[in-house]
């Protein structure tokens, strides 16, 4: 051991120690092929959804905004087409997030990290920024040369143009983001009238900056160092998970190949490094699956292109599974196993969550009742011998029209409901405005009950529809004194 160390030390003269590893800039070469086309399509679709979705209108009547997708923070509402969520129903959001996470796990267990390669915003925007770079500065070699070149006029304007376009895209990205939280047409006019609230301005500045930084500079480092998903997605992998695989059995031993030379006794990899040049995360896939790989398939396109040129079958690098590698070695046919315990239990969980959310939404009451028993004092004895209990009644009118409700209760023989408040309040005529929460302070008067506390249940009836909502509470008679 010590001897080996000495040996290595002798070979590698001690480098000055540094506290950081300098990032080696990646210059991916552009490529054409099936997966590149898929990636373009995914980019167009996801960006179109992102930029255009806030513009979709959805009529909800006069008391609610007409934007299909809107998170209305000042008014504490979230809208998504037919669905409307109040702060009390934030569990829907939780369920949707859990659903999204499990869906990611499900897809990952089947297809590997395709989310990372095709749909993740980090990938999509980085890809878009690379496209801009490619358009202004030229392909891989031209860009690397330009970086090394002295600061001539050409270099300056090319760099300036690239960063200007990047910033424009970043600004548009930030601009679209704030639309999800504000009425888009109104904000649009405000932006052009330069009359935007400081909050919106801060968010736009921050998001422009982060988009520019993440997609222009951090790029693959986000996936490698920052992203937690990237790290734990390998936990969803098994032998049947699709990964980008280099067929080492077929490719090795690799080496340069001249046209007309025999393929006997050597592998099909001609060591052209096309797969390395196109890789957006800067790895060599021939070393096997690596943590950095985002399964985008660009190396597959690059290799297939080369294989076509040298008249060998495609698929030296391809979407593959470990199981298939083993099967080929054992002379068994390839197979794609979709139904595995892992995929099955992810499916079960997904169906369960989706079912719960759907059930919750379909049985969602148009109004809600809450009753909170007053605790100070718990009960009051009145001069006629009756007992009074106070309650804070909260009515959530989730409809988009004003409503009148009548409040009654079950569990007491003879009771009256008294109210204190502004105006002539009557428990059988409670007015609650559209899309509003109203609270009322009521007093229930009844003779002392045999049981204390007695279980009671308030019932709220919508005068127009006849629908009811109930809420359990108690009536406390005390010691009857």
């Amino acid at each position, binding site marked *: 051991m*010590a001897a*080996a*160390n000495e040996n*290595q*030390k002798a070979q*590698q003269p001690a480098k000055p120690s*540094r*506290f*950081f*590893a*300098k*990032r080696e800039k990646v210059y991916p070469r552009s490529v054409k092929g099936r997966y590149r086309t898929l990636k373009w399509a995914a980019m167009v679709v996801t960006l179109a959804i992102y930029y255009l979705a806030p513009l979709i209108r959805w009529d909800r009547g006069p008391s609610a905004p007409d934007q299909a997708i809107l998170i209305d923070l000042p008014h504490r509402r979230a809208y998504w087409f037919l669905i409307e969520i109040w702060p009390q129903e934030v569990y829907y959001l939780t369920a949707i997030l859990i659903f999204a996470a499990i869906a990611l796990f499900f897809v990952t267990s089947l297809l590997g990290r395709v989310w990372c390669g095709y749909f993740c915003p980090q990938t999509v925007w980085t890809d878009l920024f690379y496209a801009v770079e490619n358009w202004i500065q030229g392909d891989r070699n031209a860009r690397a040369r330009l970086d090394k070149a002295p600061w001539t006029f050409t270099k300056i304007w090319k760099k300036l143009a690239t960063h200007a376009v990047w910033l424009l895209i970043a600004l548009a990205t930030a601009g679209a983001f704030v639309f999800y939280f504000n009425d888009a047409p109104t904000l649009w006019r405000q932006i052009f009238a330069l009359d935007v609230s400081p909050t919106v301005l801060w968010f736009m500045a921050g998001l422009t900056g982060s988009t520019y930084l993440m997609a222009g500079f*951090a790029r693959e*480092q986000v996936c490698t*160092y920052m992203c937690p998903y990237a790290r734990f997605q390998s936990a969803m992998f098994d032998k049947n998970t699709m990964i980008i695989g280099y067929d080492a059995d077929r490719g090795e031993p690799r080496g340069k190949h001249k046209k007309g030379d025999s393929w006997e006794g050597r592998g099909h990899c001609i060591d052209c490094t096309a797969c390395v040049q196109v890789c957006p995360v800067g790895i060599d896939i021939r070393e096997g699956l690596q943590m950095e790989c985002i399964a985008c398939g660009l190396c597959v396109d690059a290799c297939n292109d080369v294989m076509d040129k040298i008249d060998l079958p495609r698929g030296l690098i391809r979407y593959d599974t470990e199981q298939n590698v083993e099967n080929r070695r054992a002379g068994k046919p390839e197979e794609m196993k979709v139904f595995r315990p892992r995929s099955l239990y992810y499916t079960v969980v997904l169906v369960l969550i989706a079912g719960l959310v759907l059930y919750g939404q379909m049985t969602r009451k148009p109004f809600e009742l809450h009753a909170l028993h*007053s*605790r*100070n*004092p718990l009960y*009051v*004895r*009145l*001069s*006629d*011998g*009756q007992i*009074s209990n*106070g309650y804070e009644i909260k009515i959530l009118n989730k409809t988009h029209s004003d409503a009148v409700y009548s409040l009654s209760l079950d569990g007491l023989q003879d009771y009256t409901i*008294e109210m*204190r*408040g*502004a*105006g*002539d309040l009557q428990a059988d005529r409670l007015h609650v405005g559209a899309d509003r929460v109203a609270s009322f*302070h009521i*007093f229930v008067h009844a*003779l*002392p009950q045999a049981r204390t506390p007695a279980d009671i249940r308030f019932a709220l009836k919508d005068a127009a529809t006849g629908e009811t909502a109930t809420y359990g509470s108690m009536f406390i008679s005390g010691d009857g*004194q």
Partner: protein
Amino acid sequence: MSENDKKEIDQVSGIETTGHEWDGLKELNNPLPRWWLWVFYVTIVWSIGYWVVFPAWPVPSGATKGTAEWTQFSRLEKSQQDIAVLQAGYIENFKAAPFDRIMNDEQLYAFATAGGAAAFKDNCATCHGTGGAGGRGYPNLNDDDWIWGGTIEDIHQTLEFGARSGHPETRVSAMPAFGKDGLMSREDIATVVDYVANLPRQGHDLSSKGYDLFQKNCASCHGTEAKGNREFGAPNLTDGIWLYGGSKDTIYKTVYNGRSGVMPYWSGRLDDNTIRQLAVYVHSLGGGEKSEGTENGGSQRKPESPAAR
């Protein structure tokens, strides 16, 4: 020592290890990403900014002040000022509004009860309790048994001038000390106390001696029916709600020694708006009664109260 000084190189990766070992596992001493290191440095620089701007270093007289002169006290002061500015509009409205408008205007009413609730806890809760439930000698403000009246105007007057408070306009009355001052004999007091203590349950027994004694000595204030008189602040003796307690012993003490509890006056101690807010708040606690000639804001005073049993 010399063995330990040597840096150990991992055979597989060729990277130096940190030298630590956990159950046979060793950690590679990989360098950090550059962006990470820069963020780390920036946070250090940022923290220096904190030292300069905010109170930071302990010195004999407390701590360095910081260029922003920030303290929690100044922040509190600022927020109090902000609140005062916010309130100004409401207070103007409230000042101008008479009670019957406040009792019918949702916003004014909400403003009054919110302000009243806060002022109640500061000024009234000491005697009446945080929930207004009172205690021995201090009336429960949640019930409908008012000694001086339960309309918003009555409550306001009691709040403003108090009862036996020493204010020139105070509400005043006295329960005489029948025993101590020799107005009644001990036996008669015992008889009338017996009679009064049973009133809520049994009502009037016109043939009893207690009835005669009551009519002779008590009815001038408490009324022939013993239902009290709010003009004199004489409590209703038939409703089973006792300010000092309903046992015969306690009632005996009340009759023998008299009672003269004090409700302080708040006029001049609290500003008019706060007193009016308190009146609305106390009225909202449950027992508030409707004012004469108005439709809204409370229950009608029940002329006849059926006994519990």
